[in-house]
């Protein structure tokens, strides 16, 4: 394809986009919505993964202790816990350490300032188990201690596991949605370009008779599809970029869920999203236009 032909193709494509502008805008918006959902699911999934990798260090059990028991009683409980099979490590968390952890995790934010004079945070044991399969067994044994100095046994893994399941579910769900929406967008583009193809049926027919090659006939339609896909992609990237920066910007303002707002940087997310959206948008355009022109070439 030389420059002269390219100018011709581009001119033809722009002309028909403008001529069918309502359909063109509708297709751009459809593609953009599809890619926007893709951008949204990708951001949510990668952030969930990111937060998970922070949580996985905490894959252990916590046994919270009654505030009223003495140090001797605590030592006895420690011995009992160590006697449970599969326990490899135990760590005592004092009132002070609990307080520090709390500060670290939730920040010494303004909300907590109003809570001066509250009860001290409970002491606890962090208990490490040799492998994941045995955690259930250890927890059952720890549960026997409830009422005898232990108030509660928490499976940190519960949280983690449901996060994993959630993330996986989201992944499968969003891949399905993305596949579906890509197909829908391709069909919408197909119909838009069919309008052009139909309004130019005679032209195509004459082109065939005077000896235009298939590619010469095809290019303007492909470029039209590519442009629609590209505009859709740029729209989606623009909107999601603004939205993501906004959300990440809230971080400092919500102390209680600080650990949940450990967002991935905008640049990391969009280093993937921009090329991916653009490529997918263009691909949708090419597929849509190729299909809609195909049957008109066999004259």
């Amino acid at each position, binding site marked *: 394809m030389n420059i*002269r*032909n390219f100018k*011709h193709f581009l001119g033809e494509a722009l002309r028909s986009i403008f001529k069918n502008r309502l359909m063109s805008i509708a297709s751009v918006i459809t593609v953009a919505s599809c890619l926007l959902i893709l951008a949204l699911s990708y951001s949510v999934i990668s952030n969930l993964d990111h937060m998970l990798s922070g949580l996985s260090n905490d894959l252990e059990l916590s046994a919270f202790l009654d505030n009223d028991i003495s140090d001797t009683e605590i030592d006895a409980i420690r011995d009992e816990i160590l006697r449970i099979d599969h326990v490899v490590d135990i760590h005592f968390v004092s009132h002070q350490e609990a307080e520090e952890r709390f500060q670290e995790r939730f920040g010494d934010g303004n909300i907590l300032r109003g809570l001066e004079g509250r009860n001290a945070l409970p002491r606890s044991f962090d208990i490490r188990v040799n492998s994941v399969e045995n955690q259930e067994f250890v927890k059952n044994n720890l549960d026997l201690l409830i009422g005898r100095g232990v108030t509660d046994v928490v499976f940190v893994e519960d949280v983690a596991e449901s996060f994993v399941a959630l993330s996986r579910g989201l992944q499968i769900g969003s891949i399905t949605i993305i596949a579906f929406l890509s197909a829908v967008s391709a069909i919408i583009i197909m119909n838009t370009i069919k309008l052009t193809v139909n309004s130019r049926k*005679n*032209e195509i*027919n*004459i*082109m*065939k*008779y*005077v*000896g*235009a*090659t*298939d590619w*010469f*006939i095809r290019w303007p339609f492909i470029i039209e599809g590519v442009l629609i896909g590209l505009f859709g992609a740029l729209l989606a990237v623009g909107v999601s970029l603004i939205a993501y920066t906004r959300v990440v910007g809230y971080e400092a303002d919500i102390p209680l869920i600080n650990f949940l707002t450990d967002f991935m940087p905008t640049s990391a997310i969009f280093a993937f999203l921009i090329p991916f959206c653009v490529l997918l948008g263009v691909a949708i355009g090419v597929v849509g236009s190729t299909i809609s022109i195909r049957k008109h070439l*066999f*004259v």
Partner: protein
Amino acid sequence: MIYLDNVTKIYGNGAVGVKNISLDIKPGEFVFIVGSSGSGKSSLMKLLLKEREPTTGNIYINNTNITVLSHKEIPYLRRQMGVVFQDFRLLPNKTVYENVAFAMQVIGCSPREIRRSVPAVLAMVGLQRKAKAYPNQLSGGEQQRTALARAIVNKPPLLIADEPTGNLDPDTAWEIMEILDDINYMGTTIVLATHAKEIVDYMQKRVITIKNGNVLRDIEKGGYDDEY
């Protein structure tokens, strides 16, 4: 130029297009194809344009067996033949000039070649003063002359015309025939299907009469056959 070797075209519904036709048309000839409605004239034209494939037999154009050409090669075959139809097939949103230039653009001619060739060919068909007119501002004869200009602007060695005067009154039909005769005189081979008895009788060219898809007669310098 054109050589048909026992060509048969049967359509999917069993209708006979052409049957066992063998023909030899030499370069520079002017050939009328006549026959009643449904006799197979258009079918023959479509086979020559490779718009349809023969059921059996082979068609040679310029010593190339076009029946074995791939889909990709068709455009290059079509560049060797101009084509005109009864219904002109002009693009309504383009001027006379643009309609003719279009045929050059789509095969990749440069703007310079186009600027040089189009006015010359418009002059040849007598439309130089209508270059800026749109098809709906033209008479039928002028529209057909535009289509003729478009068909020959790339200087094809062969011109195929399927009832080019079918929509025109007799006087206008004569104008078109005169232009076709000029085109033929400059060396272009012409194959023309028609019902126009008077024209065929007057022109004294080769006449091939077909009936039910068969060649009924093939006469040098013949007239329209009344009894077919």
